[in-house]
């Protein structure tokens, strides 16, 4: 099993519903976020192109954050999801420094926090909060090992990219372009 997500940059309008849904679902402290919107404007005026992305932890296959964690608090769970166990985390910050995407933050309670792909919802057969709430339906989530999952199907049809693949992290959030 390999959970992954695809985000359609052609459909995303940057409304930030996913950000709010995540903050509500996961009790993210005020002023912090586990997912966020990035807008890239590219080109020569007046020929400009905009790409909008909803970003989060990439649940990398080769994650530096798991590697550098001295206590094992950062670890993989089933399907390749990268999680942090709060009562094993000492808050040393090594994992925050090690993530090329800056996807982690120090929770005000001391431990380190980040996106979990809503694994508590997946276990109940639901989609991650961000995916289920998106008004343009621009996100796809599922098991890459299952050829019939939403995410496998859309990745077969469409062109996609990942973020900073040259960092060697093997990210598992795909951006449809």
């Amino acid at each position, binding site marked *: 099993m390999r959970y992954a997500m695809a985000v359609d940059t052609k459909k995303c309008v*940057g409304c*930030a519903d996913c*950000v709010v849904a995540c903050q509500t679902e996961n009790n993210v402290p005020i*002023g*912090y*976020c586990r997912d*966020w*919107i*990035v*807008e*890239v*404007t*590219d*080109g*020569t*005026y007046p020929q400009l192109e905009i790409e909008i992305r909803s*970003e989060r932890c990439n649940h990398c296959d080769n994650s*530096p954050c798991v*590697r*550098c*964690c*001295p*206590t*094992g*608090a950062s670890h993989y769970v089933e399907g390749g999801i990268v999680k942090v166990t*709060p*009562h*094993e*985390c*000492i*808050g*040393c*910050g*090594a994992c*925050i*420094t*090690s*993530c*090329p*995407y*800056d996807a*982690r*933050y*120090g929770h005000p*309670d*001391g*431990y*380190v926090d980040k996106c979990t792909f809503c694994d508590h919802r997946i276990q109940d057969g639901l989609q991650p909060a961000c995916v289920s709430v998106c008004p343009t339906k621009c996100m796809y989530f599922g098991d890459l090992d299952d050829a019939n999952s939403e995410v496998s199907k859309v990745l077969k049809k469409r062109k996609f990219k990942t*973020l*900073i693949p*040259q*960092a*060697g992290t093997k990210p598992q959030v795909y951006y449809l372009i």
Partner: protein
Amino acid sequence: MREELITSGRLNPNVDPYLEIWHWQIPLYLFLGGLAAGILFFASLYVILGKENEYRGAVRRAPIIVPFILAIGLGALFLDLRHKLFFWQLYTTIKLESPMSWGAWTLMAITPISIIWVAIHIQEYFPGWEWKNVILRDLNAFFLKNKVGLAWVTIVLSVILGIYTGILFSAFNARPLWNTSILGPLFLTSGLSAGAAAIILFAQSKKEKVVFAKIDIMLIVIELFLIIHMFMGFRASTQVQIDAADMFLGGAYTAPFWIFVVVLGMIVPAILELMELRHKKIPVYIPVVLVLFGSLMLRFIISYAGQMSRWLY
């Protein structure tokens, strides 16, 4: 002109707009670790070489400060932790891929050894000292008898500790400035140089002073070579590493780095030490303080600049 503008809605404290998760604690801890490693390295080296009596300052006197240095360093490391009550989790596993983990274990091993080192030389400072407790007296005799063995263990651990202070940074490929294997040898050399400088203050003879001044000059030359090498490597590498080097070659960190670390922390003390060797009267603590200051600044600047260097996407 073609331009790319990236706007992010993320504003997590200490992460955006650029990373600021490690403050003064980590560079201070790395400096003190390097200094302790340097002192213990030379102390054990001269025991192994059988020249203990000629280098009494290095072997018997200077190590007295090491347990205190390590204690302050560990204190700083502890202050850096945000989930402090769980710090003991560090000592529930050994994770070889995590420099934080094996650094914590190395410190765990080297701290008691540094205390033993002080204890068996306590008569150097308190000539009439006798261990009252029988067990302590036996232990003292045991370590004195096996001092060369103890020195071998210490020298290996001190090299690991010295290299570790650099590898802690270089293991992070997310920060292009840190992601160079030169940082290990550079921080080790800087720690040895700080250690040699500190030993000069404890030297017991003219000869010992001269030898350590020479060692220090040599180490400074190696450091300068490693620094030039590091920037050459960056300049010949990918765009993110070119950008990282540019912070020091015209960018925000140019003045502090070249003035505090290179000129005041390396070149000036090396010249002062050279003049001393030529029998000019220089107060000995001036080059020593400068070397220690440069070594500390190196850690601070690399730590802060590294957190600002990043991949762009």
